[in-house]
């Protein structure tokens, strides 16, 4: 048996999945389908910030890429629909390569820099990062190990 704090914390300090992100081609149509099939309200989608606001970086360089996002509360986690624009991003490239489907699972963490460094030291490189109102995100390429990407979310206190 491993030591208890390790068991509870792991590298990210959490094992609670906060979101599952699903790439789609038509966020309006897919949002409507979720709303209809689950009998819930259709959420309004919104664009991620512009380059100036979101300071999006993809593969180490500033990127104009944006996505439309819509969120459904589905119990303990949110289901996030993502319709990317045509600029290169982890969203657009993954959608082109794999088609519609799950792209990442997200975790709410503290200490973004430290967590990114920890993961990079385990050969899970940073792919894309950006800011949103009240926090920031980072996509880590965990595909080799986990067969799904991980998104880190850090919200301002």
């Amino acid at each position, binding site marked *: 048996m491993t030591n208890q704090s390790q068991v509870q914390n792991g590298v990210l300090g959490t094992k609670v999945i906060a979101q599952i992100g699903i790439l789609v081609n038509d966020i309006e149509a897919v949002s409507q389908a979720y709303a209809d099939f689950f009998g819930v309200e259709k959420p309004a989608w919104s664009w991620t910030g512009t380059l100036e606001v979101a300071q999006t970086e993809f593969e180490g360089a500033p990127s104009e890429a944006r996505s439309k996002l819509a969120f459904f509360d589905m119990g303990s986690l949110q*289901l996030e629909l993502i319709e990317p624009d045509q600029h290169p991003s982890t969203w657009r490239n993954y959608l082109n390569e794999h088609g519609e*489907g799950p792209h990442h699972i997200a975790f709410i963490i503290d200490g973004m820099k430290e967590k990114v460094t920890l993961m990079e030291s385990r050969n899970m490189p940073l792919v894309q990062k950006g800011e949103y109102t009240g926090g920031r995100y980072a996509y880590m390429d965990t595909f080799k190990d986990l067969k799904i990407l991980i998104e880190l979310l850090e919200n301002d206190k």
Partner: protein
Amino acid sequence: MNKIENNQLLKLGLVVDDIYVAAKNFSELFGIEMPEIILPPEEVTQDPTGETYTIFRGEHVPARVKLANLQMGPVTVELLEPLDEASPYTEFKQKHGQGVQFITFTINGFEEHINFLEEKDIPLVHKGEYGSGRYCFFDSVPQLGVMLGLQELGRKSDRT
């Protein structure tokens, strides 16, 4: 019935090539104990009573798969390593490679939900009954961007 009765997402099904390696990678990164790897039987025969079954695209098949469950907070990540035979997991792997195949919700009223979804042009792909519960998958990617899984727990005889 006019909707799926429950929208609490309980499980993600993740298809992998090597379940031992994937389970180890998850358990190390998240500080979870290494899960038990549940192996399918080497020999399978169809249950003559019909009480248990797995039906994939209309055919009775074993659809064997190695399984491991990782408890990630309230949500379970189910790792699936299919054997090289007909199953929804093998079909996904051939089409997409490794990755999240389905999201699962727990419902009451198994056949009623199947009927509801098929009426809405979401075809059933697979269903299975294992005695203490039953599960099914739908071709819902065009509508929902992901395969929908439903499960009902409890013995058939306990159903109201």
